[in-house]
């Protein structure tokens, strides 16, 4: 059962006097249950809009598009499904004159969450000692942590975090990352994280959806997305790289020297054939590694963006 499913969803913003802007363009996205799913894309690619549409803040364009959250159609059944969904979208929105604890208490009262859960969540984000301070006195990082605490209050089955590391210091980023990973692997929670920090997504997420101009351009387990966007290069370490390179070139491979006396084989579909060719000519491989791009390279290649 997918935790999130969007099929053919479009959204056009029509600003007064401006040209219509198609934020979502026949978007298809599926997020499986459990694990941490990253939502990546350049600015204006539709990440936040897709989250807003899912949560009922923004109406999709009329049409055949369908959405499901926790296997129930939305927005038709959003009221019934919302208690299983925790969300932090963009900046945390709280009453500045009230304390962090009171802000959480207001939400907990509205949703029927027991008060003890407030303390648990404050503890989870390490805000208990400052919980009685007014929200407007919080640092950006503390505000973000309170937002995460609010999203966790309902002990949601689906946790949606839009740029959760915003404003956090390096230690805070690390803690959020660990918290997200732990929640995503607790056996009941699915975490959907939107982030522009590609390295963060790579470290935190099991699967990823990449958006560009309101459409999904890649999706799947992070490893698969990376390998699909990869060049197929293989780096081979062996005692005599120059001779090995000549053998491989004679066998039809495109090769070039790599640092540390290694050989780089370009566009190699299967690594077994390389080791066989080399062994037949008396070159025994010490190490053979498929060169996988990092997510940033893959992301730029897929979306066509340039750094």
């Amino acid at each position: 059962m997918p935790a999130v499913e969007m099929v053919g969803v479009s959204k056009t913003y029509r600003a007064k006097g401006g040209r219509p802007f198609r934020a979502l363009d026949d978007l298809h996205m599926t997020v499986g249950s459990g694990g941490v799913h990253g939502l990546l894309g350049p600015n204006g690619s539709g990440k936040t809009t897709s989250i807003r549409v899912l949560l009922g803040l923004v109406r999709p364009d009329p049409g055949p598009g369908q959405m499901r959250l926790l296997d129930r159609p939305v927005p038709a059944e959003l009221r019934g499904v919302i208690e299983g969904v925790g969300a932090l979208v963009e900046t945390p929105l709280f009453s500045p004159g009230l304390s962090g604890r009171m802000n959480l208490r207001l939400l907990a009262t509205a949703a029927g969450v027991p008060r003890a859960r407030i303390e648990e969540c404050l503890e989870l984000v390490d805000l208990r000692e400052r919980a009685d301070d007014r929200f407007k006195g919080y640092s950006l990082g503390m505000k973000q942590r309170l937002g995460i605490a609010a999203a966790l209050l309902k002990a949601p089955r689906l946790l949606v975090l839009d740029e959760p590391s915003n404003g956090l210091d390096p230690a805070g980023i690390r803690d959020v990352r660990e918290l997200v990973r732990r929640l995503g692997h607790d056996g009941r929670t699915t975490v959907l994280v939107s982030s522009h920090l590609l390295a963060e997504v790579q470290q935190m997420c099991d699967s990823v959806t990449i958006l560009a101009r309101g459409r999904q351009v890649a999706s799947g387990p992070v490893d698969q997305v990376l390998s699909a966007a990869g060049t197929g290069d293989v780096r081979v370490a062996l005692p005599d790289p120059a001779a090995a390179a000549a053998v491989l070139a004679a066998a039809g491979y495109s090769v070039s020297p790599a640092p540390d006396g290694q050989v780089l084989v370009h566009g190699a579909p299967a690594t077994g054939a390389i080791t066989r060719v080399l062994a037949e000519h008396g070159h025994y491989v010490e190490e053979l590694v498929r060169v996988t791009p990092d997510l940033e390279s893959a992301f730029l290649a897929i979306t066509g963006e340039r750094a």
Partner: protein
Amino acid sequence: MSAATQHAAPAGPTGTRLKGSLFRAELLRFRSRRFIQVLLGLSVLGWLGAIGIGLVLFDHPTDADYAAAQREYDLAIVGEEEWREQCTADAEQSGQPVVDVCGPPLAVEDFLQVQPFDLASAAEAGAMGFAAAAAVLAFLVGATWIGAEWSTRSIVALLFWVPDRLAVMAAKIGVLALAAAGIGAVAQAAWLVMAWVLDSAAGSGRELPDGFWGELLAAQGRAVLLTVLVALIGFGLANLTRNTGAALGIAFVYFAILEGALGAFLGLAAQRWSLTVNTVALVVPGGTRIYDYSADYTVEPPSYLVTNLHGGLVVSAYVAVIVGVGVWLFARRDLH
């Protein structure tokens, strides 16, 4: 957030349906709002100040006060009698009641520098004054109640918990109406307490006329209704503009400029539907009579009586439109 890493995944409510109370949450939010607390606190201070001023102004006149008043009366009555004879003759000639045209004759008490508090004559005016003060306070409270929500956008965050936008608005409106009714009732009770204090300290001792309490309590009841309606107007304007300051600006422009222009250019027909006239008509016993001084007339300009019921219905219609449009837009618009 180092402690976060030492905790297990949330063990909160799962599987069972959560039973929350949006109304209770909004009531708690209302009670917690500091600006509203400040406004109410300042109102209490203003009330205490008014009692203090009343105690200074009202007193039992002494023989010396009466003697001084008699001297002033004797000086004034000479010219007054001459004018009154002429006024009476004119009134009788035109067939108008003399009291209506010339007013009551002068009395020594009119010249007293120190006067006792007369509950019978002051009760209605006091109730109206407190109604006006409560209405202004309620407008501010209503506007800031939703205006601050838009300013911080916490109303959007609430939709992650209760996605039913109409339910969210209904809860906020319900809490405001309840609070405004409380403000209106407390304001009228405050006036009764103030009147009792002044009457006890410096009352005239004059017997209250028949039906006094019935008429006063009815007016006070209508004043409570007015407080609720004005609070909702403040709420509606701030909800439409999504800004407390803009709501106050619109109210100022309307009352200071637009209504004056309506009265001057459109005459009686427009005045009958103006917010100010109907607001006054709602609370004043018997309603209020409006006159068209721009018409041609010899004795009395054409007039129209705006009754309590008319006033209540018209103000309610304003509320329905202002609040209704805002709620409709909130239910339909994209929220960012």
